[in-house]
């Protein structure tokens, strides 16, 4: 049978771990770690999500096909975010844009010293 009846104790252990991790992530937010605040918050979130997927959603006991679906979902999410980021944050690498880009739209955001005209900004 594909039915794996897990002991109640396991569910409670996962539950307590999730609550403790929530407390930790909330507490850490009040400590100044510089850029590592973001890193710690995301690492804890990924860890919590993994616990939920493995035990509450029984991934540990599913067929290999299910794992393929999850990997595919995460892969496409990585493609979506990765390619968007690599587009926007490399635009300022070239001083002048390609022929198909107007110079004003190359890098309105992170500008090098003398590059493209600034977008109007409100004070």
């Amino acid at each position, binding site marked *: *049978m*594909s*039915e794996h*009846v*897990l002991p*109640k104790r396991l*569910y*409670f252990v*996962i*539950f307590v771990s*999730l*609550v403790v991790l*929530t407390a930790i*992530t*909330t507490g850490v*937010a*009040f*400590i*100044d*770690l510089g850029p590592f*605040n*973001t890193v710690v*918050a*995301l690492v*804890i*979130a990924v860890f*919590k*999500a993994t616990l*939920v*997927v493995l*035990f*509450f*959603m*029984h991934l540990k006991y*599913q*067929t290999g*096909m*299910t794992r393929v*679906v*999850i990997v*595919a*979902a*995460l892969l*496409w*999410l990585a493609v*979506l*975010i990765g390619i*968007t*980021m690599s587009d*926007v*944050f490399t635009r300022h690498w070239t001083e002048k844009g390609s022929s198909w880009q107007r110079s004003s739209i190359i890098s309105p*955001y*992170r500008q090098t010293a003398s590059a493209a005209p600034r977008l109007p*900004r*409100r*004070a």
Partner: protein
Amino acid sequence: MADAHVSAAPVAHQFDDFQQQTVADTFGMWLFLATEVLFFGGLFCGYSLYRNLYFEAFTAGSHLLKIQYGAFYTVLLICSSLTMALGVRAAQLRQKHALTIYLILTWIMGFAFVYVKLRYEWYGDYLEGLIPGVNWAPSRESLEMVNHFHATLPHLALFFIFYFCMTGLHALHMIVGLGLLTTLLIFTQQGKVTGGNYNWVEIVGLYWHFVDIVWIFLFPLLYLIGGRYV
């Protein structure tokens, strides 16, 4: 022993037996959740992009949200995930009474989430003039926060648009989940779950846990990120 129950379960004619149907149903739900990852992914992608571009405004916006609400929702959803998981376990063991109780508990916590969000948090945001396009008139304290982080008001509005779209889409999923739980409760009372297809509970459980996972990421991204120290 389990086979005695299984033989009573309805099997659609395209499946060889109950077990094949169960595996196919569960797999279908995972496929749907994969599309949901990308559905939310668009918002997460946009959020990451604009947070990097307008870092100061997003930090200021994060400080304007009330962390108590975020932490409360997180714990509430984790509790509801626990009762849902225990409900699935009860369904596996064909315990009708326990299943009913766990489903009701899960429903109550899900409803509390949506109610507190709409009635208190969003209504509070509305009164503070923090809803772009509806009532956008940030208070003096909000403006001081914006100045403190050297942010600009239009970029702060962008943060709040992301905040309302992301939590709004999540709340919509919670409401759909409440509907699924209600349906499940009715089926349980009719004996269709414990006497028939217990796997429905597993499938609704997968959906419920997925919505919980989305919140597990929304909480740090919206409420915590950038730190809460000023």
